[in-house]
């Protein structure tokens, strides 16, 4: 084994030790949470053998399942609307020069930069004052969906714009030169080229919505609970492995969605 190259800091033992410690500390709590979801003990402290009963218990918990279905419904609806708005925003900012463009860009960045809690209270005030309550499912979820779309579509726009920035406008001009209208050129030439970032953006929108706690917490009514909000109330009520089981499921869905998004993004950069 020859000694590491001059700048190969990642190969030095002290750096490896530091990285190992870092990732251990980063992952230990999550891994322990997952492990204890299989713990055959009501208390979350000592290991008493493996069991799947808390998953069964979670499955039998109607309000938990309801929260889960709500979460998925909201995430999917948010994904569709948020992606649509995000993509047209990206195209608008990439394609056009128009008056007050800088100001529009600034306003579009606001939902990303202002503290979540401020966004949350704004939603609380808005829906309390001007939105009918006591709607039936799934209409009672619409306010949460609206809140989610408002803060997710700028993220989608950022992702799609990133790919648009590397795009050659001459493809579109070529299509128009060959007789396509601007619409057709956009649909035939532009959209296929930015498909990877649209899919990645959609998955990110899905995840952001599924994961959101703060904004949902302020928007959700008593009969429109999502999984993170449900977990929050369970955590405060009693800490049982059932919470771990519910959390584990949410973690797994998240990891799969993020992994997919990253793979698609990677293909984009390789292709």
């Amino acid at each position: 084994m020859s000694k590491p190259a001059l700048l190969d800091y990642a190969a030095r033992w002290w750096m490896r030790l530091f990285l190992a410690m870092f990732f251990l500390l980063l992952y230990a709590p999550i891994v322990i949470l997952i492990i204890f979801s299989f713990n055959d003990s009501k208390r979350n402290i000592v290991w008493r053998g493996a069991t799947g009963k808390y998953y069964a218990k979670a499955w039998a918990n109607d309000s938990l399942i309801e929260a889960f279905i709500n979460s998925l419904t909201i995430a999917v609806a948010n994904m569709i609307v948020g992606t649509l708005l995000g993509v047209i925003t990206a195209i608008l900012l990439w394609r056009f020069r128009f008056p007050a463009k800088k100001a529009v860009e600034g306003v579009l960045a606001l939902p990303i930069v202002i503290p979540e809690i401020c966004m949350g209270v704004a939603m609380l005030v808005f829906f309390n004052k001007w939105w009918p309550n006591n709607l039936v499912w799934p209409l009672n979820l619409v306010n949460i969906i609206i809140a989610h779309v408002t803060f997710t579509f700028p993220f989608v726009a950022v992702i799609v714009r990133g790919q648009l920035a590397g795009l050659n406008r001459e493809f579109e001009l070529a299509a128009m030169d060959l007789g396509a209208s601007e619409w057709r050129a956009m649909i035939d030439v532009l959209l296929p080229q930015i498909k990877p970032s649209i899919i990645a953006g959609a998955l990110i929108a899905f995840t952001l919505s599924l994961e959101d706690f703060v904004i949902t917490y302020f928007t959700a009514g008593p009969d429109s609970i999502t999984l993170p909000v449900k977990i929050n109330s369970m955590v405060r009520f009693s800490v049982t492995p059932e919470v771990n089981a519910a959390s584990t499921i949410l973690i797994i869905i998240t990891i799969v969605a993020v992994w997919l998004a990253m793979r698609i993004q990677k293909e984009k950069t390789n292709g």
Partner: protein
Amino acid sequence: METDNWRRNKRVFFAVSVPQLTWLLIFFIIPLAAVFIISFSEKRGIIGHELVWDWKNYIRAIEPIYLSIFAKTLLTSTAVTVICLLVGYPVALAISFAPRWLKLALLFAVTVPFWINGLIRTYALIAVFRTRGILNFTLEWFWSIGASVLAWFGIEVGSYQDLQFLYTNVAATAGIVYVFIPFMILPLYAVMERFDKSYLEAALDLGAGHWRTFFTVLLPLTTPGIISGCIIVFVPSLGVFFIADLLGGTDSLLIGNVIERQFLGANNWPFGAALSFLLMYLTFAALILYSIVNKKSKKIGGVDV
């Protein structure tokens, strides 16, 4: 070329601008404006309030008790940012110098917690910090090893006493660091990845040691990443409430907790609205400071973010 002028194709322009701008107006600007107006109202009855257009709520917000909470929030966020930077910088550096296969794996490993719900990750920390939790178990283990070594020398130490971590400021700060550290690493990594490594080789070639290379070349040239990382951690950490709620003690109240209580507990919307806007102004101040510092750091060179 003039093809990007919006007048050239108004139909397409309106199609890609009207929907989301309308959306933003109705579901973002109007709600924020409502909060702004409420902040000048007065609480009436149990849940009601009336617009009176005075500064009472803001004046109340600068009473010592709330001012100290603002100060505490700033202090906590600053501490969190500094810790995230000290830990995150070497991690980002190591990732950017890793071979390609490892780089992608490490990057994914940093990104996953970034996406996992902050609430769940905070909840996971409870198991670490509580009296009979992982941290105390680990310390006890080290203690017992130490004790047996000392016993071998004939020195007796008592048995391990569990330390109180949960419901302290330390746990709250550690929790915020834990939730926000990926936010620091990713922008730092982005700058380091684009950083031309031959600058480092040139410095070493010219006779600088590794430490002097770090301070004279790497650190100044990665400043834009440091600034971005700090702002990305600092700004959202100002508004945190559930982390301090779950992990912190009674004296770990941050401004986010106060806002939440005004809206969902005390039902004093006007005061909560005023606090929200103060928090937002604080955020904007940080962002403006960022853009000034960032412009300056770009002027003296460095890698664009």
